[in-house]
């Protein structure tokens, strides 16, 4: 076997120009695939971060309260009892927060914004302040200072609100200024409340376009809710990957505690109003989801991005594979007499096959490793450079202002293994042809 490796390496080195060209093509496709996957991973990381900050915990225990069969209010009543069950029954629990849920119109000096209103009880949320990245004044105000104004922890104050940059721009407000929240209450009347902007945070993509964060007590006031009512419990786990398992476990615990549960649907709560409103029941039903369900529309976008990435890489890979097949056929043709000599000396067909597969595999391994490292370095460089997304719509999909890139070593290794395997497979046909050559025919060949 060792001599086959030696022959393979030396043949690759001897045909330097061809090896360099083919390696370059394979490496380029690898680097491109790594870049696409790094962007996908970057978006996915942003998705998790923004989703679990603005829309959901790892597991969400929410629900609908129906005072009459035709009404559906996104509330959890008997909140203290629900929280107790969650605290006692959640495996791998990190912490639980209660978030109020509202929807309405925010009015500022420059215009209006339709948005959700998330009620925050800061005492419940140990990571709230550190999770939000506050924006400098220059990011939302022309001629603004390169200075962060405001303080996210002031959300504890009654009437406090935190906006995101895109909202602050549209409302034309700054920290310390007032906005008004206008909404329809649960009894069908319109109510308003004046709020003070205590901080302005950097956008977190699409989700931050319709999320204003405010003091929970203010939300209770405007919707006339009692203290034992909340919008949803967001359950955070030590390991987010256990969310599905924990959700199923909590369904059992809550049912055993006497709560009515809705069937699980992998959609955010606001997709369910119409269906729940049409159902013939009254009272409270709890609805358990995981973070992915609450941002399923974004997950689908990410899935489409991934499919497009894989498609683009596959097309390139097919082109490169055809190039490899063609090149390997040429190599076999050039070395036919050498194959004949080796067959005459006594090498078996299987070893001839292996010789050419080893050569292609070594070429593939070298090219994909270099390509993957170049791609990873490029991805980390782009991420570190914080290159701004060129168009607004792109920011929505990227869930960030800059192009996010994240390199996962396991994905990197997988790319190298898969593309090396593709290179080897592409060489299989020419290698099999070489192995099938009869020695007498191969020896009589003139290149």
């Amino acid at each position: 076997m060792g001599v086959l490796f030696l022959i393979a390496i030396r043949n690759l080195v001897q045909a330097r120009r061809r090896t360099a060209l083919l390696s370059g093509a394979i490496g380029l496709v690898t680097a491109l695939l790594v870049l696409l996957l790094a962007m996908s991973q970057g978006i996915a990381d942003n998705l998790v971060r923004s989703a679990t900050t603005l829309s959901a915990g790892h597991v969400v225990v929410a629900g609908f309260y129906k005072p009459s069969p035709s009404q559906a209010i996104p509330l959890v009543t008997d909140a203290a009892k629900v929280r107790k069950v969650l605290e006692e029954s959640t495996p791998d629990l990190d912490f639980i927060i209660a978030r109020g849920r509202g929807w309405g119109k925010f009015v500022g000096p420059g215009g209006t914004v339709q948005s959700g209103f998330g009620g925050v009880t800061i005492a419940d949320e140990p990571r709230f302040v550190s999770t939000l990245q506050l924006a400098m004044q220059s990011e939302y105000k022309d001629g603004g200072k390169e200075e962060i104004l405001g303080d996210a922890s002031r959300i504890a104050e009654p009437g406090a609100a935190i906006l995101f940059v895109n909202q602050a721009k549209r409302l034309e407000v700054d920290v310390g200024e007032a906005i008004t929240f206008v909404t329809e209450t649960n009894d069908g009347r319109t109510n308003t409340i004046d709020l003070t902007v205590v901080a302005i945070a950097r956008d977190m993509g699409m989700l931050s376009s319709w999320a204003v964060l405010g003091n929970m007590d203010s939300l209770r006031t405007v919707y006339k809710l009692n203290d034992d009512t909340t919008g949803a419990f967001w359950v955070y786990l030590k390991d987010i990957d256990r969310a599905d398992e924990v959700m199923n476990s909590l369904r059992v615990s809550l049912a055993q505690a006497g709560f009515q549960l809705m069937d699980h649907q992998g959609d955010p709560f606001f997709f369910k109003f119409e269906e729940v409103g049409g159902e013939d029941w009254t009272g409270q039903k709890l609805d358990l989801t995981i973070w992915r369900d609450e941002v399923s529309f974004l997950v689908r976008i990410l899935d489409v991005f991934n499919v497009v990435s894989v498609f683009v890489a596959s097309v390139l890979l097919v082109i490169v594979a055809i190039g490899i097949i063609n090149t390997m056929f040429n190599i076999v043709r050039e070395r036919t007499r050498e194959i004949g000599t080796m067959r005459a000396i006594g090498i078996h067909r299987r070893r001839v096959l292996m010789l050419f597969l080893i050569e292609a595999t070594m070429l593939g391994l070298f090219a994909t490793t270099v390509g993957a490292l170049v791609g990873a370095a490029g991805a980390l460089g782009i991420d570190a450079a914080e290159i701004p997304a060129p168009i607004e719509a792109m920011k929505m999909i990227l869930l960030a202002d800059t192009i996010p890139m994240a390199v996962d070593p396991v994905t990197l290794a997988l790319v190298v293994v898969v593309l090396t395997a593709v290179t080897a497979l592409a060489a299989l046909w020419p290698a099999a042809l070489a192995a099938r050559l009869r020695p007498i025919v191969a020896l009589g060949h003139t290149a």
Partner: protein
Amino acid sequence: MSGIVELTKVTKDYPLGKLSVRAIDAVSISIGKGEFTAIAGPSGSGKTTILNMIGCMDVPTTGTVSIDGTITNNLYDHALTELRLNRIGFIFQSFNLINVLDAYQNIEFPLLLQGTLSGKARKARVNEMLEKVGLTKQSGQRPNELSGGQRQRVAIARALVTNPAIVLADEPTANLDSTTGTAIVELMRDLNKNEGITFIFSTHDPKVMDRATRLVMVADGRVVE
């Protein structure tokens, strides 16, 4: 007593479009162990076809070929390859060395394919062969760094390194100048005399024929004397 090589009424036809061409016709040859046999004749007479039959690289259309007691007609590729690896050594007109391996590695190659000797034994055997063909100093040189005569010496060492029963040489001096060609034939003859190795070689060079202990003349695919 039967020979180490027995060709009995061997015929070989090659297809040529819708027709077929007979390369050798009812050839019967018996070659004994330790002979230094030249198969001679003009170009296209069938010498190489006969060597290919003996070397298990081709099978006859009719007739039988027996190598060291094994009838090769019905053997599959795997068995024929094993036979070539363990019982037959090849020397080619164009040397046919593996260009990316040096002299030592070219000689070692058949031993590695056999996989029977330890590393130490293999090294000793290769060095012994290098010494026999006078190329100890050139062991690390690749074929393109060697002269034609040196390359053919490497090819001879490679053919002999596995201790084969038969060494086949197809026009071994055709690509060499007269002096080098004579030296190569002398080397083969010495190995034949001193070690009892059976050599069968094709040639149309009268000087080479003179060195053979037995001459098989071929013309138009038939043995003529």
